[in-house]
């Protein structure tokens, strides 16, 4: 599968009162088209920061210092995809990418929804932001139908006026003239048709996501919905424009286990239907085993291991991954749980070289000197650890 998005050497810092937090220190990985990639790590290791950095949603006091986020964007005119570095683009282009090519869903669904707007308003917003041409198409069809029905002269002239407005909008959605029209008090009601069109689309989308009685649900407000419903609405907002990449930042961590299973099924089904790639961020290894094809393990702002899921679970190569897997309680196992000794480091003054070396049972002198690079040890199984580097060197010689 070709690579959809490639992240090279991404560095992100946060400038706080206590010092500079080196949240991401040279992250390298890629997401292939149509795959579900898991991003695993403890709380605070930088998973969310990675996601926000991809979408360039890092706000002061945070700053993306260096690196590249190369996305293969489908050009509108041509058929081919050409790669662009998202970190170099204008904010305007990023706004076209967000919610459109790349979408994100968040952990806390009740926080992600705006309490003063109805479900309809919030889901429609995605359509109104990015799918104006398609909406115009639908509206124009509607206007044609109304015109054919035939009515008074007054009505027909209004319809014709609306049609010309929408024809113009279809050609050039951000036309200056249209912006002016939105200000005029009576004329601005022309937007009503488009809003209704967006509403129809939202209802369709909610139905596809398995929400019962979507016509009623769209009228409700976020605080009137249950946790699972809220998360489905958030997913709807993200999927409205059929993005090529969906970033899911711990979407099920706050839900009951049964709801969690439903949401995971939903997300899996979406990949089948919409051919979306998914970056699934979680701290739960069980979810990774169930959902993902490949997995990336992060620790303290470093990527330590990248592998297909069964290879990762069968034969974890990095000491940290091994520690994680050993810490998972197994039913029926009577032995004491083995935890990783030590504590997660303070990212203001992180350990030098490999950031895991203070807690590693296999630590060597060179581990504290330089950060080990990700090297392919087995087929598609990468690890950033000097133990395995030695082995490859041995194999080479």
């Amino acid at each position, binding site marked *: 599968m070709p690579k959809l998005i490639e992240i090279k050497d991404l560095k992100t810092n946060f400038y706080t009162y206590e010092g500079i937090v080196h949240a991401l220190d040279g992250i390298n990985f890629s997401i292939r088209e149509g795959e579900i990639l898991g991003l695993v790590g403890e709380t605070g290791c930088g998973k969310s920061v990675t996601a926000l950095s991809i979408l360039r949603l890092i706000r002061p006091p945070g700053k993306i210092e260096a690196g590249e986020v190369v996305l293969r964007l489908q050009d509108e005119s041509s058929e081919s995809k050409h790669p662009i570095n998202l970190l170099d683009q204008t904010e305007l282009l990023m*706004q076209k990418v967000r919610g459109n090519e790349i*979408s994100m869903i968040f952990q806390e669904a009740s926080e992600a929804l*705006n309490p*003063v707007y109805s479900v309809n308003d919030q889901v429609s917003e995605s359509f109104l932001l990015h799918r104006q041409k398609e909406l115009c198409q639908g509206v124009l069809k509607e206007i044609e139908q109304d015109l054919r029905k035939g009515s008074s002269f007054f009505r027909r002239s209004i319809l014709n006026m609306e049609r010309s407005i929408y024809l113009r909008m279809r050609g050039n959605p951000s036309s200056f003239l249209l912006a002016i029209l939105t200000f005029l008090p009576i004329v601005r009601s022309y937007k009503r048709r488009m809003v209704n069109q967006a509403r129809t689309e939202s209802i369709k989308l909610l139905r596809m996501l398995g929400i019962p009685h979507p016509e009623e649900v769209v009228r409700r407000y976020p*605080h009137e919905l249950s946790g699972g419903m809220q998360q489905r609405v958030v997913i709807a907002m993200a999927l409205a424009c059929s993005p090529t990449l969906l970033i899911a930042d711990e979407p099920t961590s706050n839900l009951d286990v049964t709801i969690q299973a439903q949401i995971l099924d939903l997300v899996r089904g979406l990949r089948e239907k919409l051919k979306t790639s998914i970056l699934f961020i979680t701290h739960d290894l069980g979810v990774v085993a169930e959902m993902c094809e490949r997995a990336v393990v992060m620790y303290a702002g470093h990527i330590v291991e990248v592998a297909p899921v069964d290879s990762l679970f069968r034969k974890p190569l990095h000491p940290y991954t091994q520690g994680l897997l050993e810490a998972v309680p197994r039913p029926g196992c009577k032995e004491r749980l083995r935890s990783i000794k030590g504590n997660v480091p303070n990212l203001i003054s992180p350990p030098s070289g490999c950031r895991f070396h203070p807690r590693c049972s296999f630590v060597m002198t060179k581990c504290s000197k330089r950060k080990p690079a990700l090297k392919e040890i087995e087929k598609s199984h990468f690890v950033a650890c000097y133990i395995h580097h030695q082995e490859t060197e041995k194999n080479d010689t």
Partner: protein
Amino acid sequence: MKTYIIRRLLLLFVVLFGVSILVFAILSLFSPEQRASVFITDVKQLRDLQEIIQTHHLDAPIHVQYYYWVKALLRGDLGWSITAQRPVLKALFYFLPNTIELALFSAPLIIVIGIWLGSVSAVHQNRLIDHTTRTLAIIGWSLPTFWFGLMLLMIFYGYFRGLLPPEALSTKANLYVQSAEFVRYTRINTIDALLNWKFWILLDALRHLVLPVITLTVVQCALVMRIMRSSMLEALGRGYITTARAKGASEATVVKRHARRNALIPVVTVSGWLIAGLAGGVVITETIFSRKGLGWWWARAAVQLDIPAILCAVLFNAILFVVTNLVVDLLYAYIDPRVTLK
């Protein structure tokens, strides 16, 4: 919704009852002789002081006095105002238009400017514009209203030779307004001038309004600005803002559509109190600029011990406050879908 309004109106009566007790308590601080003097319009009647005390039950037990007082109140008889030389209720309606005019021009300015500055300040937090507006706000909040008004008068009336004069209208305009040619529909100068199609009077009235409105606005604006700023900062830190950005909305849309609507909710509550509390500022402003409105009347009443007028001030403001609160609560329920009227 209807039951809610009815219930709130009943609550209004309860509070009014409480206020009437408070007012009456203040009234009873005066001696019976002082209170009898209220009913005297002519010096000769001083002889009949004891008789007056008897007729108006001013030496009866407290609850009896209260009964008679409320009875008179409900008839619309709040007594005679010395300073206004007419019954209190009539005086109220006589002085009301000037005050309404002042409030009409000040209140929208306070709210609009306060919200706008607060929003700008929050969006550009910790940058120069934020520090400037915050400093101005805190200075505005610390200004003594009467001193500020007088300083403005000194500069714009004194130094700039009558550019922005005190009082409501110039002498020439005043004469015209009181003549037969000018129809007084509302007795509010600006509106009447508009309705009479006499623009020079409108301009004259506006010129006289500039300084009082600035005086009133500056001090209150600071409060609205601070509330809006902190409320906006809180809204901007919430999850739905990140979601909106992740959807690809422009920063302007995020601020206007998502943040502001949420941030306005606490501001609505404060605005209600502000409107009701404008009375204090109005008293001072009208006194300084010699605008003959409610505030001017009440200030003179306090100095000249015009008891019925003072009590009218307390009652009027209490009613205004309760009604404003009701309106604010309804507005609240309209804006915030999480609020249900219980």
